[in-house]
């Protein structure tokens, strides 16, 4: 094992938070991507057959059976570590929730999964194995074959459509400020859809958007083009409608390229 990954595992073992017979342990979130900064939490998912419990265990609820996920947190130096204990059967249920059958029933992503469930699946796709590589590879493959990607793409495109309507409505009513903000939101949702179509998830946290664009390298917009819109480089306060219309047109261009 990579010495750095081995050190991660040693830290977990030293804190006594690794269950016997766990199926998998994985780094998740920014640390798994190498995007973390000095203030980032380290997130670790552990997958077990039986619920984990210790003196320091807390939990959050999920609409699964059983309905709780245990968590532990601790500090190593100034760094906070957050450990979540998911059951193998819960992960199976999550993947079933985003089946193609569920997608074809017009269920919206926000209705199919809670935010925590979506975060878990999003992070699973890019998780780094500390233990249980076969389990992680198998679950990643199941996720890849599921409709998770299409759920998220459809949701982001729907959000983008809503923001486009808002922008046009604001422009028609003479509010360039409101239209500008709505156009920016539409653009973010369209970019999210483009990235999700490439399996690059994580739309919940805005600060990672440039990182995700760099990682996904979408064919239909370069990083420089994305960043020019993101930072409003051609926005003219004397003629905001021109920029707004260009951005909304770009949102349509993106929608045309993405297979839902």
């Amino acid at each position, binding site marked *: 094992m990579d010495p750095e990954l081995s050190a991660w595992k040693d830290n977990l073992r030293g804190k006594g938070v690794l269950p016997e017979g766990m199926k998998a342990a994985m780094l998740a979130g920014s640390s798994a991507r190498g995007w973390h900064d000095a203030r980032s939490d380290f997130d670790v998912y552990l997958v077990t057959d039986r619920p984990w419990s210790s003196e320091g265990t807390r939990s959050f609820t999920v609409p699964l059976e059983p309905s709780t996920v245990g968590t532990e947190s601790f500090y190593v130096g100034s760094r906070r570590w957050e450990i979540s204990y998911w059951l193998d059967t819960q992960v199976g249920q999550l993947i079933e929730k985003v089946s193609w059958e569920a997608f074809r029933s017009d269920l919206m992503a926000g209705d199919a999964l809670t935010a925590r469930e979506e975060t878990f699946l999003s992070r699973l796709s890019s998780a780094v194995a500390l233990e249980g590589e076969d389990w992680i590879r198998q679950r990643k493959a199941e996720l890849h074959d599921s409709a998770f990607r299409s759920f998220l793409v459809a949701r982001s*495109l729907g959000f983008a*459509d809503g923001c*486009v*309507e808002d922008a*046009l409505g604001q422009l028609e009513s003479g509010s360039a400020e409101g239209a500008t903000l709505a156009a920016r939101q539409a653009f973010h949702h369209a970019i999210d859809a483009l990235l999700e179509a490439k399996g690059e998830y994580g739309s919940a946290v805005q600060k990672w958007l440039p990182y995700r664009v760099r990682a996904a390298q979408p064919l239909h917009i370069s990083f420089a083009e994305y960043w020019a819109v993101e930072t409003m480089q051609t926005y003219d306060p004397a003629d905001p409608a021109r920029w707004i*219309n260009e951005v*909304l*047109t770009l949102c*349509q*261009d993106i*929608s*045309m*390229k*993405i*297979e*839902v």
Partner: protein
Amino acid sequence: MGTPAPLAPDDVPARRLDTRIRRMDGSLVLAFGETVVQLSESGALLYEHMDGRRTVGMLAAVLAETYELSEQEALTDTGEFLGYLLENSLAEVRTSGP
């Protein structure tokens, strides 16, 4: 709804920005209000190139080059397609000025 006037080669058609667009099973599907339209391959080609800058003539040239049509055939096909979009409020046109 009245039938739109025929388009001139210098007119500039544009997609309506409030049209919802999806690509499903390789086809472009447009929706505006209760109108839902699935475009043919050639229709999708024209629609994708309707960026509010290209004229009808330029769009026809794209069609002619892709499908090896004569200029007149391409202009006729492009005009029919754009007329359909305009009738269904899926496009708007900027008439070229003098």
